[in-house]
């Protein structure tokens, strides 16, 4: 039973941005991750899929050390992530939350926040730089002077994305970034993310419950259930011909739901 849950050897990427081995996580006395072995390919777009409560977000939060696992090892580019200085790690591995948090002030002020935190490590963002970042995130550059708290959910999420880019990260972690958005807005954001991965050579790891988004953007998929990896592999193959019955069931249920 246990060996069946391991990802197939072919599913382990040649060059991994993240390498997780035997990762367990416990929150409020509940086991949220129960022995995760997973490699997330560098330069790839990994979609973490699975039913709600399967541990996707718990896993994502480990990758920039918003949380530490109860046990197990996590490597980033071949080094245990605990060996990196945590603030530097978080600048290299950006995080976009499910519900975007805007800091009070203008959009420009939000994009200058990271520089304000570490003036020596993060280059300053002037207005033209901010406009470029907004364009990259798929937002009208004229938003630069708007009050961030007044924006719509989709606009805020794009500002949050642009803000995550201000530290010039190598990796972006995305926790259901489209959960609060209309389907069309969500699709456009996922396309933006997909383009960003290529234009900025980013490694993307996105938690999603919308299979559609995995199909649009993912190059690699890991299916989680009850805190374990059911299967992981190249997105095309896995989404077309899942090897595990539970993945098949999950994909079919998802297709039915979203038409």
């Amino acid at each position, binding site marked *: 039973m246990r060996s069946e849950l391991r990802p197939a050897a072919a599913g382990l990427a040649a060059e991994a941005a993240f390498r997780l081995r035997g990762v367990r996580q416990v929150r409020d006395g509940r086991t949220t991750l129960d022995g995760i072995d997973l490699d997330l390919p560098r330069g790839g777009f990994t979609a973490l899929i699975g039913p709600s409560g399967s541990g996707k977000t718990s896993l994502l939060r480990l990758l920039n050390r918003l949380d*530490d696992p109860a046990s197990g090892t996590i490597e980033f580019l071949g080094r245990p992530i605990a060996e990196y200085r945590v603030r530097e790690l978080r600048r290299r591995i950006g995080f976009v939350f499910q519900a975007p948090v805007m800091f009070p002030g203008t959009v420009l002020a939000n994009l200058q926040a990271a520089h304000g935190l570490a003036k020596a490590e993060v280059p300053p963002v002037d207005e033209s730089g901010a406009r470029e970042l907004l364009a990259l995130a798929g937002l009208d550059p004229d938003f630069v002077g708007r009050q961030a708290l007044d924006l719509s959910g989709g606009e805020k999420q794009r500002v949050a994305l642009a803000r995550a880019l201000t530290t010039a990260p190598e990796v972006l972690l995305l926790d259901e970034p489209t959960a609060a958005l209309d389907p069309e807005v969500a699709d456009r954001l996922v396309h933006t993310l997909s383009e960003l991965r290529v234009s900025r050579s980013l490694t993307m790891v996105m938690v999603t419950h919308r299979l559609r988004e995995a199909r649009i953007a993912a190059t690699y998929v890991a299916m989680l259930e009850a805190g374990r990896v059911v299967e992981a592999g190249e997105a095309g193959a896995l989404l077309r011909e899942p090897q595990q019955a539970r993945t098949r069931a999950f994909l079919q249920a998802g297709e039915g739901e979203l038409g």
Partner: protein
Amino acid sequence: MSGELHPFDISWLRLMAAAVLVLVALALSLWQRLGLGKGLVVGAIRATVQLVAVGYVLVWLFAADRWYLVLAVLGLMVAVATHTAARRQAKGAAERRTILPIAGLAILAGAGLTLAYVTAVVIHVSPWYNPRYLIPLFGMIVANSMNAAALALERLASEMDAHRAEVEAWLALGATPGQASAEAARRATVAAMIPAVNALAVVGVVSLPGMMTGQILAGADPALAVRYQLVVMFMLTAATGITAAIAVQAYRRTFFTPAAQLKPRAPA
């Protein structure tokens, strides 16, 4: 109890006459069925017993005139204030272990530094431990420090709880715990200081301070009583500020792990 001053004396008999005033409130409670009767009676008796006891302790302390006894009483006042300030915020044993030392440090530093400055620099108390000055002054300071600590701790906990997402958004951008909690800390410190700031604004207009009134009743020159009151107000402001700042700075660290992670909420 007073030697050099000659106010009109209040005999025990006249004190009984004052107690009649409580009976007025008691009658009102019975008549309107307020259900406050028991609380009023118990409260009046408690207040009498406590204050009379304190009076005798002061008589004894003034007569003994020993610096170590004065320091012991000051220490006891800090201990009681610390316990009271921490009690509301600390629900479990683990929380109590975290909060008690923070409240104790904040009250001791805020009240102690202020008392030292006021007695040494402003009033020139002699000898330095003169209980007639130190005990009443410290009583007022400690009470304010206690309230400041309790307010600061409570407000910081609720700010950190209400703004978890914002704090984590800052951490994810590479903020230190101090940077990520700066706004929560600022709001908690302001909340703890607002009563002191408001008191400064309304004193003499809306409120006539009890200490000044008491001094005047006891026969002091009103001009001197006013100056004493100003010293007290300034000293309470300082004590409040120092206590609130130390409480907030020490407490906010406890919300984070050494790896700059926001700790999970304590299970309810």
